């Protein structure tokens, strides 16, 4: 009787062990996925703006990720305008694929101030005091809202990272403005 009860208790133990191992492995892989995606995005937010906006000729962006067993280096090859790219990481025998897709979230008007060009540009608003037009007496004081359409592109960056086991893909989205002006 006792042996039977012991056997009944041992069966779920085997299942729980395998489940727990599976979950722990998946957790490590998902943590690595998140770390790689963040590292890739951080790197892309710090490279030259032109490498993202127009990677012609192709650009190779090196970066590395710290793991418990030491730093792992890889690179993302970017090409196109705006840039598209891929890279591969191998950590602990697991392959992580990195995909990068840059797009123009807003297209700069580049000095061509037509309604069509400015409609696609990133437009900011700010308040200005109303300008007095005409001869005195001036109009009553008031405030108006002015807008400014940016001449440069404002980029959207999509980083996708998936592991070799075909787990859920992590997609991170970020933005990059041209800060040189």
């Amino acid at each position, binding site marked *: 009787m006792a042996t039977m*009860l*012991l056997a009944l208790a041992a069966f779920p133990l085997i299942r*729980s062990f395998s489940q727990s191992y599976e979950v722990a492995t*998946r957790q490590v892989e998902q943590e690595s996925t998140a770390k790689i995606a*963040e590292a890739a995005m951080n790197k892309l937010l710090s490279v030259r703006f032109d490498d993202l906006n127009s990677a012609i000729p192709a650009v190779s962006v090196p970066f590395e990720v710290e793991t418990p067993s030491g730093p792992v280096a890889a690179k993302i090859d970017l090409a196109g305008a705006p840039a598209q790219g891929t890279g591969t990481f191998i950590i602990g025998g697991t392959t992580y694929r990195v995909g990068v897709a840059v797009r123009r979230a807003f297209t700069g008007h580049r000095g061509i101030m037509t309604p069509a060009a400015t409609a696609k540009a*990133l437009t900011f608003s700010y308040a200005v005091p109303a300008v007095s037009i005409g001869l005195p007496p001036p109009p009553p004081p008031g405030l108006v809202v002015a807008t400014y359409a940016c001449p440069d592109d*404002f980029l959207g960056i999509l980083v996708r990272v998936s592991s070799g086991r075909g787990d859920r893909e992590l997609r991170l989205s970020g933005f990059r403005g041209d800060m040189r002006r």
Partner: protein
Amino acid sequence: MVTLLLLMMVLVTFVGLLHFSTRGQKGTHARLFDQTRALMAARAAVELAVYKYRVLPAEFYRVNRLVNAVTADPAERNFFQAVWMNDFSGKSVPGGFVSPASLLVESMRQETGEPVEFGVESCELVTRKESGYVKDYLRIRAWGACRAERKALDQLVEVEITHAP
């Protein structure tokens, strides 16, 4: 017999602990990804706020002067500040104004398929006077969220160094 029964009880307890621990771990996966998305959303908000300052520095300083002016009309001060901050609102603004931030939030949601949000709580000038020079910083408090996860970023960006006479 008693030993076997005791062993069985120990095993059952162990299995129970392992089972519930595994269930608890499963929940952390989704949270980890949501935390990462929330952090990236907050960074996107900071990028937008810094970029607006970079393209409209004179207007930013004008808003800042007015906000800090002792004699400023409170209604006028609030209006200047609200117009500046409306561009960073990821949600709809009264009056049908579609902010750049809301367009970016929408594009983030489409790209990732996740309910991300972001916004900027404050964007102000911090001036520090040291002996012989004055430093200006742009202090941005931004947040990003994905489902129940929310991340806040407080970033200090050095924007100008002017030498005192």
